[in-house]
């Protein structure tokens, strides 16, 4: 059964690669425009062995980690304040409502002048990218905690601080992790864009240099690495969330929407 489910997942990828390879081998398009899968894999090997890929990947990874950790931490802290204290929520809600809809890359020209073109620029962009979604997911998680459970904690002798740390925050974890998971992937997209525009190192910079040299094979290698990194980050947070909420059942299960189950229940 497990083998079957793995095959179901892998088979479309194998079919896609075969079709890609076949089309490239037909030479309908010049190879420097549309390289074959095998050519891309060979280039991947060369980039990996020479250390070019790892150097650029580490540059991007550092920026993503720094921006993401700072942005998420700030989002969680401010979210806790806004979710648990109504006056904080009322004070900050208008300003954040105005800032949230601005696309992250919209900040880039402004930050280029304010911060300069240096390591801090992508970190600041990823900070903004991570901050708002984590903030709003934290607020939603905190406000969504069952009021009866909070009352129960109060009757059991818990102070406001204890209720926050022992009941509200643990129960808000599924929501907080939803924000972290979604933004973990988004942070990689933003860092690539920032590196393409302004920073001379990193996966994005490697891509833009390859474009000027018409090295589509290198670009595709970079895209593959980017895809794997996004997926790895998302899966990491999914794994941590599952480890933490293992056994709780109802909270994460109720919050997750299952199309198949919904269709079955409607029938």
């Amino acid at each position, binding site marked *: 059964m497990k083998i079957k489910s793995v095959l179901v997942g892998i088979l479309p990828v194998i079919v896609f690669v075969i079709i890609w390879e076949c089309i490239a081998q037909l030479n309908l398009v010049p190879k420097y425009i549309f390289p074959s899968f095998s050519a891309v894999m060979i280039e991947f090997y060369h980039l990996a062995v020479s250390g070019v890929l790892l150097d650029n990947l580490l540059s991007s990874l550092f920026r993503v980690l720094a921006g993401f950790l700072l942005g998420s931490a700030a989002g969680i802290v401010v979210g806790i304040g806004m979710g648990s204290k109504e006056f904080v929520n009322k004070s900050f809600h208008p300003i954040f409502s105005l800032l949230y809809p601005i696309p992250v890359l919209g900040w880039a020209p402004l930050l280029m002048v304010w911060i300069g073109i240096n390591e801090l620029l992508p970190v600041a962009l990823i900070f903004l990218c991570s901050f708002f979604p984590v903030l709003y997911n934290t607020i939603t998680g905190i406000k969504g905690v*069952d009021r*009866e*459970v909070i*009352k*129960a*904690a*109060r*009757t*059991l*002798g*818990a*102070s406001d601080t*204890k209720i926050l740390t*022992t*009941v509200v925050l*643990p*129960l808000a*974890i599924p929501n907080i992790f939803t924000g972290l998971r979604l933004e973990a992937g988004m942070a990689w997209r933003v860092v690539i864009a920032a590196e393409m525009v302004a920073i001379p190192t990193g996966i994005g910079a490697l891509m833009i240099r390859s474009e000027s040299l018409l090295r589509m094979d290198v670009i595709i290698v970079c895209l593959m690495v980017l895809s794997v990194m996004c997926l790895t980050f998302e899966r990491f947070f999914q794994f941590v969330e599952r480890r933490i*909420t293992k*056994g*709780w*059942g*109802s*909270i994460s299960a109720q919050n997750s929407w299952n199309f198949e189950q919904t269709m079955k229940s409607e029938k």
Partner: protein
Amino acid sequence: MPTIELKNIGNHVFSNLNMKVFDGELLVVLGPNGAGKTTLLNIITGLVSYEGTVLFDGVPVDKTATNERQIGYLFQNLALFPHLDVASNVGYSLKIRGKKKEEIAQEVDELLKLMKIEHLKHRYPKNLSGGEKQRVALARALATSPKVLLLDEPFNSLDSGMCKCLRRKIRQIQREMGITTVFVTHNLTDAEEMGDRIVALNSGKIKQVTSKMFNDATATDNGNHSQSFQDCLHCTIDCYCKGTEEDYESADSPACRM
């Protein structure tokens, strides 16, 4: 254990409500949905705002925070912590009071044994049946060593066999510990089997009080205890069933009034 007094209580449900729960008694508050039963418990707990005074043993507790009133509250939906296993749910109040791990473990084990749910110690609430959840919630409420126990329709979702079993268990524990208890229900059987006194409540007003105290007689407004508890209980049940204020006035006998 304290005598609870409510004096001139007013809020969105009650208007000038006065009532008393005696030391160590189990008072049943019987009433239809929307009668104000849960609000009454929330007033005693301090979870809702109100005018008037709530006294424990003659001392006003209006300014005492809920977490300092030493109340065990069994909520209607039980409100178990879904992120904690049974042992952690029961030991929650002990942990936040800074008790040592060994002490918590010992007290939790005793309570689980008392409720006969030792085997559920490491399960999460989602893996418990309705009856098991009730027992866990009761054990958790008792872990605070409460002076007052408030039970809000605890048998709502249970089958009759489980109800009977838990009714006995709660009655036994309440008598052994002598905890002043307010039990809210709309179930006549629960009221009849459990109450030392039964109060019929409707639209935020007390309509009838029936008592097992004073040698199985009924407390009346003039001090006569002429009618048997069973007769008066039926008056109270009639009052509860008929629903309107006029019905209450005509259905009850003067001997049952308070």
